[in-house]
């Protein structure tokens, strides 16, 4: 049996001071009436124990929404959202469920930034990385430096940031809907040299909902999940080259080859927590070797990516899948697309784990 995305909704990624986990869940399903006509709910969330003192979040969300339907929470750091979509596809493909709601939820703006930064850093190995003062931006900076030694110019990373902000201007649910200049990194706060805030994702609260069904909609407004795969990478410090994001590259290569796709033509959402990561991936896939012209790619991170749409950690994968779904079936903000396939890529930390999803209209 197949698996189809048939419906969905998102709330704006933002600092929703007045909204907690349950409020965000309520807000997003309110926008999506048939999101509650399901027989299973998979909630993806990475940080509720740390940011909201809540274990068993999924049960408490179901109780808050007044639902008795089976519910569970899935977590895998920054890839939690795509992990949930993957499980939902199996839940309906198994014939055991008809319609599954995937609900990505994250609340991250309740604490001073350094506290949230610390919670986020725990996606790395606590005992062997975090205790040794290694944080996600430190790895991103090391990847950036290695790429720069390999000939990538500083401006290339900036052009990613500029492009993402530009894309986000037409996306209503994006967190940062303004343009930035190529040299804004010069005045930007340094996180870990040479990586600046300009190279980093926007951290915001978020909620995204998708309905995965065992059958397509009768009209054209659904997409099929034709491929969903996961690969665990080596710890970054064990790699021959720290900028080789081998798990992501392997999955993306496999995806493009198997479906005869060209990244320049296909709708793609890449995980761009820090600008060096998508640049490293594109180069490993054989793109950008002559320079850094992102305009070669027709539908690359139309949403603005983690950089500008924003990154509500455990919900991000659901946003990405929603965005590709909308582009394939209708429109995303003011953007439309004329292609049959869409690709979603998610990873946690510096490629500790990667997941890829292919959607077909």
């Amino acid at each position: 049996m197949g698996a189809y995305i048939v419906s969905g909704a998102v709330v704006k990624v933002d600092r929703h001071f007045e909204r907690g986990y349950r409020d965000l869940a309520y807000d997003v399903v309110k926008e999506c009436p048939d999101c509650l006509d399901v027989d299973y709910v998979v909630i993806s969330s990475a940080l509720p124990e740390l940011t909201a003192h809540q274990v068993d979040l999924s049960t408490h969300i179901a109780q808050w929404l007044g639902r008795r339907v089976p519910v569970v929470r899935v977590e895998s750091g920054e890839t939690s959202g795509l992990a949930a979509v993957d499980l939902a596809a199996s839940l309906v493909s198994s014939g055991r469920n008809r319609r599954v709601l995937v609900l990505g939820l994250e609340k991250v703006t309740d604490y001073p930034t350094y506290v949230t930064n610390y919670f986020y850093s725990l996606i790395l190995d606590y005992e062997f990385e975090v205790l040794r003062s290694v944080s996600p931006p430190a790895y991103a900076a090391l990847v950036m430096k290695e790429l720069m030694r390999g000939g990538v110019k500083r401006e290339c990373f900036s052009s990613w940031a500029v492009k993402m902000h530009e894309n986000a201007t037409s996306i209503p649910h994006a967190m940062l809907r303004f343009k930035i200049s190529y040299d804004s990194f010069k005045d930007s706060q340094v996180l870990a040299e040479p990586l600046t805030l300009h190279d980093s994702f926007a951290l915001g609260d978020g909620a995204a909902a998708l309905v995965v069904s065992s059958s397509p909609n009768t009209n054209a407004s659904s997409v099929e999940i034709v491929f969903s795969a996961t690969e665990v990478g080596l710890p970054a410090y064990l790699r021959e080259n720290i900028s080789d994001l081998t798990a992501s590259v392997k999955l993306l290569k496999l995806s493009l080859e198997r479906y005869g796709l060209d990244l320049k033509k296909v709708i793609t959402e890449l995980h761009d927590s820090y600008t060096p990561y998508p640049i490293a991936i594109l180069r490993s896939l054989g793109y950008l070797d002559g320079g850094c012209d992102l305009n070669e790619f027709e539908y690359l991170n139309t949403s603005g990516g983690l950089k500008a749409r924003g990154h509500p950690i455990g919900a991000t994968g659901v946003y990405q899948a929603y965005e590709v779904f909308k582009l394939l079936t209708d429109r995303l903000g003011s953007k439309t697309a004329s292609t049959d396939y869409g690709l979603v890529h998610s990873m946690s930390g510096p490629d500790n784990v990667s997941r890829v999803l292919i959607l077909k209209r």
Partner: protein
Amino acid sequence: MKLSPSQFWRIRESQYRLIITECGSCGRKSVFKRSVCPFCGSSNVKHVESEGFGKVLDVTKVMYRWNSSDERPPLLVGVVELDEGVRVVGEIVGVGDNEEVKEGTRVEAVLRRYASDDPYGVIYYGIKFKPIKTA
């Protein structure tokens, strides 16, 4: 977040010393005391201790505050390749104002403070790296 002394105690050998795991199956080496080779999944491993010398493969100066420890930015974090051919990640300390740490800088392992809960809490120590003066 409170630290857990027992959690730290369990990994003490990998934190106080530079243990290397050598795989009898694929022949590759990895840092830390491991039950399984991270490259091939084999349990056929033995452990040796590094001499504690190596060179910086790459380093970054972390300028932002990302936790509540008393250690404030800036701090240097890098990947070090030990002379045994094994890579490890960690902090680089003891760098003078006029010194520069970069790719190739020779370093040695030293025991330094990692973290502590509060003024009266347990202090955790572990391996960091210090440039070797060549003057």
